[in-house]
């Protein structure tokens, strides 16, 4: 698959909650090896869009086309810290690694590497309960990277994170891009979006109001 080739095409998708339409109709194409930023006010439909791409939610109309090999390799980092506070960082990753089908030495190596990547090697055996907000965010990201994704979806990964943690996460995103992974991430911070994103989508009340490349005026 070539760099910048389409890996996910959303065609006139719509999502409703009861009688109100929270997203769409909306059409969009995601490309290989890009970082695609999404911003918008609360309730604009950003998380809903991410969940539709991840397959957690189903669109009420329209279609989402994605090659099968991409569909199987989606990494999703929810806005909530989907980690067990009663377990250590390592045990949390072992659980998710088991869900992803990793076993034995491969699992151990991957976990050790990820803990090093996100800077949590020295806190690996400490319970998540005692982690700071930034540490939890980093571990949350590591859980999504257990199986190298082809499409990485991040829902406000830097909320509540300290500056060093934000730096770690943005660096990881940039490394992912170099490896040909498509990264879609939501943020309320324009400086983060402008720093790493190749394109930035602005949503308002479920509709696209702007889509521009980094450096272009909105």
């Amino acid at each position, binding site marked *: 698959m070539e760099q910048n080739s389409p890996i996910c095409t959303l065609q006139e998708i719509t999502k409703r909650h009861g009688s109100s339409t929270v997203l769409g109709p909306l059409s969009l194409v995601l490309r290989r090896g890009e970082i695609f930023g999404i911003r918008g006010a609360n309730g604009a439909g950003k998380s809903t869009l991410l969940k539709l791409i991840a*397959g957690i939610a189903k669109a009420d109309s329209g279609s989402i086309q994605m090659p099968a090999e991409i569909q199987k390799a989606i990494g999703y980092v929810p806005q*909530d810290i989907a980690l*067990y506070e009663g377990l250590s960082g390592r045990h949390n990753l072992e659980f*998710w*690694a*088991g*869900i*992803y089908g990793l076993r034995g030495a491969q699992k151990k190596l991957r976990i050790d590497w990820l803990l090093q990547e996100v800077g949590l090697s020295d806190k690996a055996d400490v319970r998540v309960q005692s982690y700071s907000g930034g540490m939890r965010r980093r571990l949350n990201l590591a859980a999504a990277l257990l199986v190298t994704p082809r499409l990485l979806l991040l829902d406000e990964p830097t909320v509540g994170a300290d500056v060093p943690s934000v730096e770690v996460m943005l660096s990881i995103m940039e490394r992912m891009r170099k490896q040909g992974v498509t990264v879609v991430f939501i943020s309320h911070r324009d400086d983060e979006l402008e720093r790493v994103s190749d394109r930035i989508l602005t949503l308002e009340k479920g509709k696209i109001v702007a889509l521009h490349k980094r450096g272009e005026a909105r």
Partner: protein
Amino acid sequence: MNGLLASIQKDIRLLIGSGGRAVAMLLLPILLSAVMFFGMADLANQRAAVPSFPIAIRDLDDTIMSRMLIDQIEDIELFDTVYHAGDEPDEQLIATLGVAAVLTLPQDFFFSLYDMRNYTVEITLNANMPLETTIFRAILSSVMDIISENQQMMWAVHTLQYGELDDAARQELYWQASLLIVADALGRQGVFAPEQTLLDDATDTALFLYGAILSLFLLFIPLCILKTLPEEMRIGILPRYLAKGGSLPQFILSKGLTAFLICFFVWALLTALIFPFSFGPAFLLFLLCFLASFAFFLLISTLVQDPARSQLVGNLILLLFLVLGGGLYPIQMLPTALQTLSRFTIPYYLITGLSGIGLGFSTGGIFALIWPLLAAAFVCTLLALLLLRNGRYIRR
């Protein structure tokens, strides 16, 4: 399969932890057994040994048989005092002496049993002592039934042997037979055999304590495993799990297997230590109690979405089940109105099933006693899965 094993490992780690917590968790059933045996044995004895109570008997028959009967009754430790009542009204005896019952043996009572005339004893019961009056009536009915049947049988035999008897002949034969009949009836009545009573007391006590400890674990372990479910729904673990190809039944199954493994270990330990029952009925009882408990707390965890509140509700229900179901105190010690609620608790069926096992019921017989547990497990599981499938886990 990998996902299932990973989930089981996760649930075990959440419940037991490691190191000292793990050791404490494994030793807990043994320590609890010892504490309950030493601390609750007296309380458990009350289940089989009701506090003694007084009764009064008015003997208008005044025959050797009636005096024999009264002598035997006076020897029963259950009746701490047997008053010999006179002409005073029964209500006055109950009010002044506090007796549980006043028994009046009418004149010619024992002869009337032999002669097939319809004489009956009169009993006045103290409404404020329901347990004691129930026990007294049961004992007396049992003795009188035996005496009555034997006397009627003797009358039939005499009639066959001697034909129609006149009053004088009947009186003589009656005297000969009745002494033997009364002695036989009193000998066959188990309550008059103190050695057997003591043996039954000890067995009942052990059964009760075994049931109490097992009740506690069969409720506590599933509650602890399932208390994480509301949090897993709230913070997005379950949606993430499903997004990665996991299935809802597998997610729940992993929790069920984890709870089952731990409960099975406790059950095997307690059963080997205290009661080596025959495996079939004992395992059926354990399995159905476990399924009902797990299904019930699964439904609770699905309904009460706040994690802290789910834990609180679960703990309250656990306590209610233990109290109402006979897991902490014998059911007979509860007020009558609360005793009717016992049938809605899991410990009730556990202790009922244990009683059946103690009496030698077959596996089918045990199932007949406890089948409501299976029905409850089915209904609760179905409701919980329906709620979860309808997206109750999706945080909007």
